């Protein structure tokens, strides 16, 4: 078995493990379906990449890299893209939470004033 095939098998096992972990987390409602689909797409991509591991060698030769380095570079690029997307999501959620907190504080004060007035009446 060539090193490329062995690497491909290892990557495929990683992809399958990701499918298992994501499915479990989604069933336990620990991640939303939206994010579960995203991670399952990544897992699928990983398995496809593993099946096409031999195609990596020509790309590696073009850039004077090893096949492993090409896989690592690809994986890193995908992880960075995911991290940036999650940062955007978290920033948006933080803004929404801030708006909600302010609305809560302003409404709580209004309720307090109304309760005081009704006690006076």
């Amino acid at each position: 078995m060539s090193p490329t095939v062995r690497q491909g098998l290892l990557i495929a096992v990683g992809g399958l493990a990701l499918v298992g972990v994501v499915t479990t987390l989604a069933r336990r409602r620990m991640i939303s379906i939206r994010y579960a689909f995203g991670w399952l797409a990544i897992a699928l991509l990983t398995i496809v990449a593993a099946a096409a591991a031999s195609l990596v060698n020509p790309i590696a030769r073009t850039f004077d890299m090893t096949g492993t380095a090409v896989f690592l570079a690809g994986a890193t690029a995908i992880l960075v893209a995911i991290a940036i997307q999650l940062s955007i999501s978290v920033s948006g959620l933080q803004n929404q939470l801030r708006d909600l907190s302010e609305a809560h504080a302003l409404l709580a004060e209004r309720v307090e004033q109304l309760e005081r007035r009704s006690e006076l009446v």
Partner: protein
Amino acid sequence: MKVLVVMPARNEAASIAPVVADLFERGYEVVVVDDASTDETGERARRAGAVVLPMPVSFGIGGALRCGFRYAVEHGYDTVIQVDADGQHRPEDIAALLDAQQATGAHLVIGSRFAPGAGSYTVHGTRRMAMRLLSRLASRAAGTMLTDATSGLRAISEPLLSEFARSYTVHYMDSFEALIVAGRGRYTIAEVPVTMLERTSGRSSASPLAALAFLGRGFLVATARLGFPIRPASETVR
């Protein structure tokens, strides 16, 4: 001029009641934005005469301030005086801020600890160096000489107040960012000397390392235009 004192506070139960009571006795309307305190800050402020806005989640001083600005705009106030809850700001300096606002028409008046005529306030080492550099950056953006870019004692008037109520930074060192943003928007900025008192309780969170981090962030805000967005004075000042 309808004036509101806005006081962001987080776990200031030990000091807030006399600070609020003093302002209340001088005739100021006071709103305390309770930044998700885990002590009795809100309750003590309310008993001392303040309106309390209880934030359920802490967003730091910038987050608390925007809530106070929103309250002011919604209730028709045209000037907000920002005062710290730890008792370091003297209530009598508020009159100086308002006088300067009336005399100059400035949208933002800073209570400076370092302007000529200010009381003695000593800061050493990297913190002082960082404060000087930030003041230079703020002066450049404001188009006027400013000596204290991180002061927490300020008067903010319309139409800048409405802009801050709509969009205001959530990050620490909000006062510097607000100066840069207001200066770039061509709002008028002035400063008056004030006296800073010793803290009546708690202690400052600023460390030399934190000062360097603030300086780096401040430099980015000033040079890379990372400040929060507001409309320029040309679109809001009538």
